[in-house]
């Protein structure tokens, strides 16, 4: 399922151009650490599925891809609205968590 990889890519590449601004917007080191950790996880989720395959008809894969699509829509807005960094972190956490579940479904040989 190519849409699964496309959504994992979207999570990672939505965060990538904003990462500097997001880190600068953090009021505490704890927030910066959280964003850094989530960003690394998003990048891992993406790369763990490049050149791999998903079971096209697996309901779990389909469901998680749908969930991630929704989470990514919220993420795109959240990474540009940095006045409330907690909300941004929540959106990032949601997308990265769903992404990790989806990445776990990739076929490994």
């Amino acid at each position, binding site marked *: 399922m*190519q849409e699964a*990889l*496309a959504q994992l*890519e979207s999570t*990672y*590449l939505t965060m*990538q*151009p904003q*990462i*500097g601004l997001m*880190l600068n917007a953090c009021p505490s080191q704890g927030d910066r650490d959280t964003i*850094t950790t989530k*960003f*690394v996880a998003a*990048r*891992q989720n*993406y*790369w*763990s599925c*490049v*050149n*791999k*395959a998903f079971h096209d008809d697996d309901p779990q894969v389909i469901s998680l891809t749908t969930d991630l699509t929704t989470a990514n829509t919220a993420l795109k807005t959240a990474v540009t609205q940095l006045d409330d960094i907690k909300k941004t972190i929540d959106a990032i956490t949601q997308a990265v968590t769903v992404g990790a579940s989806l990445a776990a479904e990739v*076929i*490994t*040989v």
Partner: protein
Amino acid sequence: MKNRAIAAAVISSLFLIAGCKTGDDAKAAATQLTATAKCLTDYYTALDTILTESDQLNAVEQVMYGIPYDAVTKAQIADSRSEIKKRAALAKGLTDLAASFAKLTGSSATTDASASAASLAKEVNTLQPMKGKLSSDEQTGMKVAVGLIVTAIQEHKERKAAHGMAQLTKGLHDFFVKEEPDYQSIGDQYAVLSGSLANSLLQNGQTDPAGFFKVALDPYGLTPQITDPKLRDGIEKLAEQQVTAKQDALKTAQNKATADMEKSLQQMSDRIDLVANEKPMELRIAPLSIANVEKWASEFQSAAGLNAPDTGSSKSKDATSSPSNQDQ
């Protein structure tokens, strides 16, 4: 060795076809296959360069933002690179052997074909499924095709060998089509990652804008020394626009190159199928679409220093070297 074995089967079967009445077409097909397979090699080599640079960019990002370039991600990128290199090796083996075939005469064909078949017979059974998407249908299809070719060569059944070769060519095309989205995704992440780091450096005043003014000063032997903050700001804004435009151009160029590569493989598959079925193959030049693929791939070959020393034409310098690039 496995890749070479597959390639040997393709060429051997082409050789057998060359012995029959469609020999001219077979030789033309081999020449065209040489060019197309080389193009495929270059495509994969460019992807390998993109992965190499992605690895380096993540290290740069660690320095810029303190984001750990963790061992897991590094291993994942290395793993992707390893897979791409396997594909490049397969295409290279096919290129070399297709080129050999195109130079040979019919008199030595049988001997060479037999030797290739003997070599292939030993190796085909050791062909293991590669991980990732070269599995299930594609892996099985290619194995069946190779087996068909080997058997046909050993039994001197030219038509059967030709059909096996046509099947294998189609298998290579289908394999490429299946992986296309991954290839594009690798290119997209490279464009976004490199572009975002470049923009960040620009926005933080960590670039030297002097290069922009060389076009005005070079003819007079003058060297730029930019001290006016307004001038620097103006150039940085222009450079940001160029980086964004270049990011989009990188994605678009790869998208077009990938589509053209797929089209070229499809055309070769169709042409070899004609030869296999003893139908006339009138076209005598390689698929025209490979030219665009070669152009795209050459940017990354020069960027990686794989060709001659960098002459300043690589994509890594295009974005900010001259204001004229804004129109690109």
